[in-house]
Structures are given as C-alpha cells and as structure tokens.
C-alpha cells in the first residue's frame, strides 16, 4: 500500500475536478481497498464520493427508474419497484457477493469492479491488464474462470459482476458526469472488450464519474430469470450466468433479451440470438437455437472449454425458467 491523499467533495462537479489518471473515486471500497492492499492499484488520491447527493432511487417520467450511483446493492435489490418491476435485477444482485459486501457495495461501483483473474491480483506475475505489455499469464495458465467470447491475445479476463448482466439485458443507460458536463452511455457500450488495451475495462475517461443508472420502463417482470452457475452456493463468482427476459404473448415470444456473465470482458449479448426467438413459441428447441447463436464464435482456452457447453445449457435453462416464471409465481 502506498500513501495517498484523501478528499471528500460534496458536489459532483467538485468530484470530477479532483479526478485524474492517478486518482480513484471510492464509495463502498469493496474491491478497490483489496486491490490497494495487493499493490495492484496505487492511487495517489482517493476521492470519497459518499458525500455526493447520489443516494436516491426515483421514478422517471416514462415509467422507468433512475438509480443514484451511491445506492447500495442491498437497498437496490430490496427496493419495492425493483422487486416488483425488475425482478431480474433483484435476483442478479442477490446472487452476487455476500450480504455484508452488498451492504457496502454501490450501484456505480458494481459497474467498475475489476476482473477476478488470479494473475491480475498477484503482482509477482505478468498481466497485461495490470501492467500493459508484461504478458498474459492466464492464456497458458489457470484459465478455468476466463473468457470464451471476445477475448484477445492480450487478455482473456472476464467481467465479474452479476448486476451488470441483468442491466445489460434490461438495456439500462449509464449517466455520467465529467468536467465538460453530463452524457449517457448505453449499457452495451459501457464496458469494452480487451483488444490491445486490456487495462481499460470501460469507456469512461479518467475524470468521468457515474452518477446514475437509468432503467427503461420495460422490466420483463412476468418472464425473467437470472441463473448463476458457480462452484459453491454463495460467495463465488459466476462460471457462467444468464440474465434471460422474455415478453410472451400467449405462446408466442414478442421480445427476448439474453445476456451472459462470466464468459467475456463484458456482459455478452448477441442481437441475432434474441431476434431468432421473436414470433416463435417458447420451446426448448427454440431456446437451443438461441443458445447456439449466442455462443457463436465461442472459443475455450483449455481449462475453460467446459464453459461453452455449460453456457448453452444454462441459456436453455434460464429461458425455460423465464418462460415459466409467471406460472410459478
């Protein structure tokens, strides 16, 4: 751990003015503190944003929800509107971490958690994400948890969030503030693939701050399901997770969303896999078709090859459960 200065601004503009390449925003600190202890992150300045007015959950005019970046994961999961209108998001949040961590972790911070790649956390090993140009130890090494989609020769890490997988399926918008003002980023565009810059997890500039997440009105409350497959029942990151959401009219699917977690550098979606279901009945055969399209181009690194068939099966199971969700409720 290295010395750092500490600031606790009370206004968003003040916070972003303090930001820069050697500064980090800190809210719940559930990931950043660990990374600092391991010398993976060595910020010279910590900007504590918990004093910013970003703690509210508010209805939007078009029936959606605006979630302040500092709303805790626990509060969000148990918020009445999330429980009622966005059960997919509630399930995904509650599948992550532990109650203690969810009490501390924030909505904005959840988007910014770093990969769980073993090499990223151990400064004794080469890692392009931690130290660009040093190499990727995982490609030939312990890559059971790594990407099967969208990886590059420089990095095969995955994004570890559960919440983000649901947000991807729900097509949330990320509200961001910077010195030049505010902008919105579609969730699908927020995280990036590693390419030749694996040190960059997302498209935020150094001095940009997430202020809120906006959910559209459509929450697929009747037919959604979050399935997380992991090595133990709690407090484990996903090997594969699926956020499945369907809009079903009688027996015909009107709209489908499928996002995969644990398989790529970002929550993984493929418009073709969703389009193929539209106008079709909710059958296992159709779900398999969607799963095949979603996994199109999947490539294992050796120890994670099992994720490809696992993800296929998980997609079919999650869609099946989503289709039946209403009946069960």
């Amino acid at each position, binding site marked *: *751990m*290295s*010395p750092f200065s500490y600031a606790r601004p009370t206004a968003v503009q003040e916070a972003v003015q303090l930001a820069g390449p050697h500064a980090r925003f800190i809210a719940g600190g559930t990931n950043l503190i660990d990374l600092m202890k*391991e*010398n993976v992150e060595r910020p010279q300045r910590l900007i504590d944003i918990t004093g910013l007015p970003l703690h509210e959950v508010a209805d939007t005019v078009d029936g959606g929800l605006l979630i302040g970046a500092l709303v805790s994961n626990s509060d969000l999961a148990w918020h009445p509107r999330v429980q009622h209108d966005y059960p997919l998001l509630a399930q995904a949040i509650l599948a992550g971490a532990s109650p203690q961590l969810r009490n501390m972790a924030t909505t904005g911070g959840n988007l910014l958690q770093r990969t*769980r790649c*073993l*090499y990223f*956390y*151990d*400064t*004794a*090993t080469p890692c392009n994400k931690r130290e660009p140009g040093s190499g990727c*130890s995982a490609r*030939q*090494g*312990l890559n*059971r948890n790594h990407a099967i989609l969208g990886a590059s020769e420089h990095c095969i890490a995955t994004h570890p969030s559960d919440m983000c997988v649901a947000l991807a399926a729900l097509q949330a918008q990320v509200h961001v503030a910077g010195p030049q003002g505010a902008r919105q980023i579609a969730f699908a565009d927020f995280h990036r693939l590693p390419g030749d810059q694996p040190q960059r997890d997302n498209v935020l500039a150094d001095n940009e701050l997430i202020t809120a997440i906006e959910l559209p009105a459509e929450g697929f409350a009747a037919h959604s399901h979050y399935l997380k*497959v992991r*090595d*133990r*029942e*709690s*407090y*484990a*990151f996903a*090997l594969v997770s699926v956020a499945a959401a369907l809009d079903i009219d009688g027996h015909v699917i009107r709209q489908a969303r499928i996002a995969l977690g644990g398989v790529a550098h970002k929550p993984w979606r493929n418009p073709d896999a969703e389009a193929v279901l539209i106008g079709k009945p909710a059958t296992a055969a159709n779900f398999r078709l969607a799963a095949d399209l979603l996994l199109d181009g999947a490539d294992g690194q050796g120890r994670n090859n*099992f994720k490809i*068939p*696992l993800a296929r*099966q*998980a997609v*079919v*199971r999650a869609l099946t459960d989503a289709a039946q969700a209403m009946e069960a409720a």
Partner: protein
Amino acid sequence: MSATVKPFSVPLEAPMGLPMDRVDGHAKVTGEAQYAADFHSADLTYGWVISSPIAHGRIVDIDARAALALPGVLLVLSHLNRPELASYDESYTDADAAEGSPFRPLYNDRILYSGQPVAMVVAKTLEQARMAAAQVHIEYRSEPHQTDLNAQLGQAHKAPAELPKPRGDVSAGLARSSAKVEVEYQTPAEHHNPMEPHASTVVMQPDGGLLIYDKTQGTQNCRTYLEQVFGLEPGSVRVVAHFVGGAFGSGLRPQYQLTLAVMAALKLNRSVRLALTRQQMFTFGYRPPTVQRLTLGSDADGKLQAVKHQAIAQTSRFEDFTEHLVEWSGMLYHCDSVELDYQLVPLDVFTPLDMRAPGATSGVFALECAMDELAYAAGICPLQLRLRNYTERNQNEDKPYSSKALRECYSEGAERFGWARRTPEPRSMRDGHELLGWGVATGVWEAMQQKASARVVLDGEGRLHVSSATTDIGTGTYTVLTQIAAAAMGVDSDAVHVLIGDSSLPTAPLQGGSFTISSVGSAVQQACTALQKQLLEAAQKIEDSPFADVSRDQVVFIDGRLRLKADPTKQLALSEIVRSSGSGQMQAQVDAEPDSKKREPYATASHSAVFVEVRVDEALGIVRVSRVVSAIAAGRVVNPKTARSQILGGVVWGIGMALQEETQMDHDLGRFMNHSFAEYHVPVHADMGEIEVIFVDEQDTIVNALGSKGVGEIGLVGVAAAIANAVYHATGKRIRQLPITLDKLL
C-alpha cells in the same frame, strides 16, 4: 443439523458425558479472548514479510535504501543482516519435523519455493512497514523449477515410512478374484487456512528474555525450537497461546513468522509483532497432492482376495514429508493378501504439513472409492461389501481392537439414513432435473495417547486450578478438561479453572492427532487422584477428624467435600482441609504415560460410517450435498456438544474436500495462485445440507481410563469418498480426481 445422543451403557461420571457449554465461549464472543496478534506492549514495532515471486534460484541483490529512507522504518531484515543462527539441522528439527533439512528462514540467498520469505521490514507502524515493503527492490536469478507432481512421477523415491510388510500373495489373490478393480485417484494440495492467520508478538522482557504470544499447537515445541535456533539460554523464552483461532495442523511446527519476529526483536532489542496476510497463509505447509493406485480383487461373494495400494505424494527438495497414507488399506477390511507402497516426489515447493486427519483423509478417500467400485464390479450393495469384509483384528499389527463398534455405526447410520430404500443402479433416483445419489464410506483414525503432565492446585476457597502446556485450537479442550477435573476431583465445574497454552506449564505434547484428551485428560485425572490422596491425609491430621482411621475406599469426594461413605453426615469441605493444612493451597503434579502394558496387546482406533445423499443438476453439473448421516464410534464421549461440533466440522470439511477445495498451482510460474478466500473455496452455509451425527455406544477399558478415543479427525475421514460414491450413484460418472467440480460432470 441434529445429533443423536443416546445414553451410553456405562456412562461417564458427571459432569463428564454432559453437553456442557464452552467455558471459554463468553470470552470468545465478547472479544475478551486475546489471540497472538492482539497483544500490545510499550514501543511495539510491526513487521511485514516480503515473499519471493520466483520458485527456484538465488537472490542477487537487495536494495533497501528507498525503504529505509521512509518514515518510521527501523529495519529491513534479510539473509544479509540477520542475527546469527544455528548451523546444524538438528537445531531446526522440531517435534513435528519431517525427515531432512528443515527450512531456515532468511538463512541464505537461495530461493527454494515461490512465496518464500526473503526479507522483512520492521517499522513503527504496520502501515509504514507495509508501504516500505513495496519499496524494497530485490533482484533474483531464476533457475528452472519443477512443481508438477504428475509430470515428475518418474522421479519418485521410497518414502521414509515404516509400512506394514507385504502379506500373503497379492498376484494369486487377484488371479482367483472374480471381481477386480484397478483404479487411480488424485487428490490436490489443500491449505489449512484457519480463520486466525499465523502471527507472533515478541515482547522483550526487562531481563532480556522473550515473552512470545504465538499462534501454535505446541508452545513448548516453539520454545525449544527458538532456544536451539538462536542459541538462547534455556528458560529465557516463554511461548504463550491461550487461545488459538483454529489451526488444523498448521500450527504443529514453528512457522516462519515466529522465527522472523524473534530475529527482528533480537536485532532491534525491541518488541515486534508479525502477522501473516491471508495470501501468505499459502506460503508454508499444506496437505500434499497424491496420486494413488488401488488394485482390489474379491470373490463372487465380495470377500477381498487382494488389496494393493500404491501412493505417490509430493514433498519438498529439502524434507521428506510422510503421513499415514496407505496403512489404512491393510487394516480397515479383512484381507490376507496386501501390498502397500508409498513414494515421494521432491519438487521446488515448501514441505507439506500434517492437516486434519493427515494421510487418512487422502488415503481412505482412495480406498473407500475403490471399495465402491468393487461393489459395483461384484454386483453387491456397497454397505454389504463392507460388512462381508469386516474385521475384528488389525491385520497390519496382527492384534485385536481394544474396541470396535463399526458394525453399530453401519447399522445405526443406515437405519437413520434410510439406506434400505436405495435402488442400486446408477441414475435410478431422480427428482425433477436433479439426479439423486446415495453413497457410503467408512472412516478410521488411530486412537493414540502420548506422555503428558498436568498440575492441579486446590486453593483455600475450594477453587481447583488445572494447568498444562497444551493448547485449545478451538476443539473444546478448556471445557473438556474442566469436566474431567470436576468429575475426577468431585467438585463443581464452576470451581474449576483451566490454564493452558503456556510453555511454562507442565509438559504436554503438540495438540494434534486427536490425542489431547486421551493424553492431557488422563494426566489431569491422575493429578486429581494424587491430590485426593493428599487431601485425605491432611483431613486425617485435623483434630477429632472423622476420617482418622479410614482408607481411600471408605470415602468419597463429592460436591467439593470429602465425605464418609458409611455416614454421609461426616463430611469436610475441601477448602477447609486446605486451610487447615496451614498452607494456602495443596497441589499435585503427575506425568501420565499410556498404560503400554495394557494397550500393547491391542490395536486402538476410532471408526465411522458416513452416509451421503447428493443432488446433481444433470444439465449444469452442480452437485449439492443434501443429507449426511455420520455415525461415529470413538469410545465414550466426554462432551457430546463439543464432540458433535468436531464431527460437524469434519463433515463440512469433507464436503469442501469433495467438491471445492484445491490450491491451484501455475506450474509455469511454480506458484500457488488462488491465494485468497474469494478464490480458494471452502463451503459456505448454503452448501451444507442436513447433517446428523450419531455417537454409537462403544465401551473401551483398554485405550485409557476415560475410555475416550478423541474426535478431532474421525469426522472428516470417509466423507469425501461417500460424496464421490454418491455422485457415481447419481450420475453413473466416476470422478477420480478431487475436487468434483461441475466441469467434471458435464
């Protein structure tokens, strides 16, 4: 979770046999109990360990200038500036040492394994030390390393273990067998990971002596080690471990944080605290990976004709670590033709270390899975197969067991579990998209006793002070010794004060092997008997004593009083006897030894039968252990509550071993990589189904006076095999490599 506690046919004298609450429970939940890194002293300094990133090679240069320039930094300790250390291996050989040359922290420039401590920063605050550690620049020269057991099997040599001689004719036995299995099992490295990380607080005493609060299972082992390694005056070191936050074997040997903390304290002539990080908890001993080949043959009735168990395990380049890995295959079932073989492969790693039920955990796993395979090959119920090969004798030693109620474990466990309703074919039980599987396995552990001493002191207020150097690693030693002393002395348990975990107290063995109660408990019992003799003699000297002419068998010690059997109105409070004796207290100390004359003709062991139900999600491969019944034969149980906790902990550990636990090594780097609790998985509550513990009635007048065999390890042995066997029954897939993660079932 529940437990069946049936009255034993010959119960122990109360308060033994009662489910007494932990006497140290209040102190632990209120934070009053202090652990090694909790102790403070004036001008305490703080250490931070720097670990090697390479697996093999040499330190070329250590540049500590930047670190030393930082505020508060007092010392950067390395092989270049350490205090003088002993030269010969004997000085480093502790009570649990493996054969070879023990690791010497900061001894020279050689790197023997990845994660090796190479330097230590000492500063006025922990934060200063940690920050400075990142500023110490060390240059290494790497040399090729080998860390992959599977790739180096050809380098195996015979383990320095005394195995039972081969008996009978295995080839002939196999030739006449109608059912045969020849199978290979693999178990991975596992790290102990007690909740309390290893830590030492070394407090400099005014006379130059060292008072050391250490996380250890052997205060006297550590004391002697330090005296030898640093050439310190005998008596100048006192090691204290009143409370130990779990250990599981990790505290059997003095660990390197102790040596480093003492080095720094001697160098600076100041008090030093050094606590390892969770990541550093992966940089010393562990349960070694094994590759085990089992060859079994039986006749058509399932009677074993041949057993062959060949094991290869990993060790370090500097020590040959051995454990009782294969012996179980020669004793658990009756078989007249047995061959056991045990080899080691030295690698560029740290030496393995005894870990809860060392050897049996891995060896019985392989045996009990192979027995299950044999049951299917012979077309016999796995439980029946075990009963058909039941043995009353330990054929390794050619001795009868002092007691063995394993048959009762099988029958009571099976009944409670509902084993009779099992359908034998794999994949024959289903519930929705889950396949159900039922499996069984046997467990066994030695019932040992070691030499131990204890002192009991009765004061004028009638309080009984019981002391011994042994520790309580969370197993309930404080509580059980309280019960033993109260029963043996005839006083209320509230009057008993147990003081343990201090090298200055009467000699005790390492706390391990499930022999603490057998050893230290026997010493306490005998010390109480000796004190009772003194008390009677003192009572006889009192004027007009009603006990003047009576013998020991004419009186009883009960409720803190000495009482005449023939006339219960004639009684004296023990406190009164002490006061009348003129001294403020009366005491007795004994050195208890196993009654070897009595024990010698017998083999002694605890046994278990473990029944498991798993649910396997067929499409996703997820395994859940929904039900476990563990039936235990461990003699008489001194405290059913703490004993049950031991078994529950063992079962949960077994679930982890079967499904989750594995320290993953990157062999290119020669480094364990999943060194955190986020990535090194042990079960969480949600992974634990219903667990039921049964203690079957087992009387044993041979093993020790208590008739108690210890329960620290037996709860774990066999659990992983029962789970693996249940997974086979559920899925038809035989997974021979632990842990059974879902990818292996897809």
